[in-house]
């Protein structure tokens, strides 16, 4: 396999972005009529839909917790989401891992102790996959939870960063992700800057970790600004419509 040139001489990336530039983000909330809260997010060509149901009755009595709500996450990738049709079952280890990571990310953030003996369902559906599935899912889930009016201590904003030829780059796309370069996904709580989730694949020198993580954190903060403005806009609209 001939190696792809991922960085041009001018330091531009394969899709023309600068190393520290995010892809275009579009976020919408309340996209589904049936769900208690829902969101749709596009980060470049990665498209993800999230639906939140609950707090509601716990489905399996075995799982009831008496002091807080349980969070249940289901993650699904549409078979048409990649260039080659790949049927990935819901129980494939990778999907299970992502679902469990998202669940554990939101557990300390959602104020579950306000809803004892109940369950909050988060359903995630990836429609188009172009790198950074996990970050898109987390961002979509945050928006959907906010849309559902479930109390949280903060936003959870996620972003990826990698390292190509010793140059830290932000928000990898599919080509960059699959080229064997390291990919770090970070989710932070923007208010405190604390790291909630961190996951990395492929090899990265430990001395680079700090700078790559710092870049990812910057990305998270940028995403936070975008998501926050969407939420504020929506709330403003809602307020206006109520006042009329």
């Amino acid at each position: 396999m001939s190696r792809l040139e991922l960085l041009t001489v001018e330091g531009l990336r394969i899709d023309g972005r600068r190393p520290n530039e995010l892809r275009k983000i579009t976020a919408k909330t309340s996209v589904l009529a049936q769900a208690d809260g829902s969101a749709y997010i596009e980060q470049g060509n990665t498209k993800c839909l999230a639906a939140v149901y609950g707090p509601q009755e716990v489905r399996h009595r075995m799982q009831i917790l008496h002091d807080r709500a349980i969070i249940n996450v289901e993650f699904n990738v549409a078979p048409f989401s990649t260039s080659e049709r790949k049927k990935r079952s819901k129980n494939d280890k990778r999907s299970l891992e992502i679902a469990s990571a998202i669940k554990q990310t939101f557990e300390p953030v959602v104020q579950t102790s306000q809803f004892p003996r109940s369950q909050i369902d988060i359903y995630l559906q990836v429609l188009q996959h172009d790198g950074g599935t996990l970050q898109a899912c987390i961002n979509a889930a945050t928006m959907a939870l906010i849309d559902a009016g479930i109390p949280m201590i903060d936003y959870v904003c996620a972003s990826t960063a990698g390292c190509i030829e010793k140059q830290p780059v932000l928000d990898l796309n599919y080509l960059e992700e699959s080229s064997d370069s390291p990919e770090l996904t970070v989710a932070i709580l923007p208010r405190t800057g604390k790291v909630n989730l961190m996951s990395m694949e492929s090899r990265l020198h430990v001395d680079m970790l700090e700078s790559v993580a710092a870049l990812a954190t910057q990305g998270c903060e940028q995403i936070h600004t975008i998501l926050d403005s969407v939420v504020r806009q929506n709330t403003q609209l809602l307020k206006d419509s109520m006042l009329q």
Partner: protein
Amino acid sequence: MVREAEPSLNEKQFVLRALKDGLRTDGRRPYDFRSIQISFLSEYGHVQIQLGRTRVTRVSAKVTAEVVRPRPDKPTEGLLLFNTEISPMASPAFEIGRPSEEEVLISRTIEKALRRSRAVDTEGLCIVAGEKVWSIRVDLHFFDHEGNLVDCASIAAITALLHFRRPDVTVIGEEVTIHPMDQRNPVPLSVHHIPICVSFSFFADGELLVVDPSIIEEQIREGDMTIAMNIHKEICALSKAGGIPLEMDQIIRCSKIATTKTAEITELIQKALADDKAQRQSK
């Protein structure tokens, strides 16, 4: 499924108070690993790892090889498979056929640390492109769960891969001959680097941390993180799936700790392999 008994409030408080004073219930300091015992069984590639001395975490790994057809999209690459199903032998909380969250995370961490980081040269496993390749499978058997299965499993898997020998092959034209072990010396796999997992548990809002958590520490922890690293200071996998939010500095500190632990463990593995080699030759 038999549910794992939760530690009592008293136990919890005891462990936490001790940790605040920098002590652990099994007498270790916070950054200490339990003693690692590596024992080789009679076959090549069959290793048992024990963490600790009395109440041990015990995992064994067994490597086997067979000749198969390669995947059509990767005709020149051999296969590397891991089987990490955990039986109720390790702890009655595990169930057959339905992977628990813990099992999924262990399996994915091993996959990422050993396969995604290309620890084993899979292209060297090709015999005839598009026709025949070696399929190497690593079966992990979990015997006792006294905390930190993932580190124990990663050490077992990589040690077994380093120890394994496959039968030699000669290819003349289309003809492939596989030489039985007793006719020609078997050959080792080519292993590029040795990734070692180091796990951390966090307590008291992420202020306190321990390396190589025991089972009670795992039960009462607020968050966890696993870093897989090799001796070249490359991080092969890092996963902190939720749990208590941490400061970035804390994570960077953990990566530094992991660097030294990795170096120590790698040395230990290499010594054990050298000892075993000497022993086998003297026989």
